[in-house]
């Protein structure tokens, strides 16, 4: 497969003397669905924040498609092809579902103030393109009928879908989902599994998720990385992870431990 899609080497991150990530190496291949798991406070979201540019690791290297992302601002990381969702859904309030998803096209369009004020044909075409692309993304996640509703008034499961549509609108190569199943019921979780599969199969986008629901992780992931106290303790296929004694030890005494075993 050549170079991996995402490659992290020797990531060190600390806040005020506390080590959060300790020399983490991490790769995500092309066209895979991968997961990052670990007990609470293991540093999973911190690792996400390092990849997406929200945190700046003290040292290390982060490459997507061979391009160095270290020290890039979050919007540059998105432009390089990595989109994300947030652990607590963060939609833009008082804006419609459509307007929320239209934000994803921002980095693929360019009309500025002058074009907008004059309403030039190019700007109008671009607006139509942004709108059409947003609707396409909403159709893909299956909530196109809600376009005009206030996004934050939707049912929670639908808000999560809007957030995924919004991330897809940025046309990523890699989609990072931070606990996408949190707060969803069993039916919605199944729907999410199907959606993640379709994102990879139909859109050819690699997916990396952080997830607490280990049952779901085992079902969907082709590759799993386990983080504990900022150290990457295991990686491999779901079967290997389930049998790995280090992983079992890390989860012992945790609520999630039983689910895993």
């Amino acid at each position, binding site marked *: 497969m050549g170079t991996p899609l995402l490659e992290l080497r020797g990531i060190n991150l600390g806040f005020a003397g506390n080590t959060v990530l300790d020399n983490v190496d991490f790769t995500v291949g092309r066209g895979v669905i991968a997961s990052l798991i670990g007990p609470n406070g293991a540093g999973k979201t911190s690792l996400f924040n390092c990849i997406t540019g*929200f945190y700046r690791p003290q040292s290390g290297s982060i490459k997507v498609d061979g391009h160095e992302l270290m020290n890039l601002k979050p919007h540059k990381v998105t*432009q390089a092809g990595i989109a994300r969702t947030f652990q607590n859904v963060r939609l833009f309030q008082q804006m419609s579902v459509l307007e929320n998803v239209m934000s994803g096209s*921002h980095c693929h369009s360019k009309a500025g103030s002058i074009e907008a004020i004059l309403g030039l044909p190019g700007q109008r075409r671009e607006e139509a393109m942004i709108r059409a692309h947003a609707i396409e993304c909403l159709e893909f996640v299956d909530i196109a009928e809600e376009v005009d509703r206030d996004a934050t008034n939707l049912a929670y499961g639908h808000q999560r879908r809007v957030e995924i549509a919004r991330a897809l609108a940025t046309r990523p190569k890699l989609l990072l989902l931070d606990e996408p199943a949190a707060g969803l019921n069993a039916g919605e979780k199944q729907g999410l599994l199907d959606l993640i599969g379709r994102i990879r199969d139909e859109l050819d986008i690699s997916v990396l998720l952080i997830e607490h629901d280990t049952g779901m992780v085992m079902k969907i992931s082709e590759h799993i990385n386990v983080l504990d106290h900022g150290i990457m303790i295991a990686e491999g296929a779901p079967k290997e992870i389930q049998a790995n004694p280090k992983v079992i030890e890390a989860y012992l005494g945790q609520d999630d431990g039983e689910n895993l075993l």
Partner: protein
Amino acid sequence: MAQTRSNAFNNIIAQFNEPWKRYIAFAVIIALLLMAPISLGPYATVILTNALLYVVLALGLNVAVGYAGLLDLGYAAFFAVGAYTVGILTNTFGLNFWLTLPIAVGAAAVAGIIIGTPTLQLRSDYLAIVTLGFGEIVRFSARNLDITGGASGISGIEQPWLFGWHINTPFEFYYVFLLLAIIAVVVSVRLQHSRLGRAWLYVRHDEDAAEAMGIDTVRIKLAAYVIGAIFGSVAGVFFAVNLGAISPESFSFQQSVLILMAVILGGMGKIPGVILGAFIVVLAPELLRDLGEYRLLLFAVGLLLVMLFRPNGIWSVKGK
């Protein structure tokens, strides 16, 4: 009681949600404004001209405060940049008025970029302090420099000619400001419904999420700040030629606060609200003139009551 009255008012505002009703309302207002000077006489015309000036200023500040959520406490500085640019260039250097207009726009943009670039990386509260300082720096500079005429300012600024027509009566200036206000409204509407306008709202509602969508938040905020500055500068240009004289005291902190009040009172980010706010801050003290000394007190109490009962501004519609 207050609740029901508030709902009734919301219903009136909601009437304007349909586009065709809005266009009719807009047409009626413009028709009334076109006829106003003829029926109301010279004194009212001057007051209304001032109100229209505030409409332009408030819509400009609304781009920064209302759309992008950038609290600017020194907006009068940009107003001063425009006024002094035209004053200095026409009086001292004998430049044609119409040539000074693009220069004033450029000067405001440069000033906006110089102040905005370092400060827009900070959180909004720091921005408020820096802009407050900037406003005072501009005013003090104007008062102490020779080129700006010191404390007495610049007088004898020539009124502009347009194809042989000398714009020099209050009535003519009224229509100039009416045209400026209409342009400001159209520009605001266009910006609001554009990619840039949406980006301002994304940044205002959730800066991190906006960043994650690939939006360069610093650049987007700078655009709002600079566009607001240009509105202020253009208003300053016409303010200077209308009065024919400017002095530093026209660009005080109170001026910045008054413009900000128009924006907040009417409803941040809502164009009809901001226009209403501008008319209120200019007309209310005039209408209360008979009360003499008490008028400012009464005005202040009125403002407090509005903020108490309609904290999102007079023109705040639920859900949008």
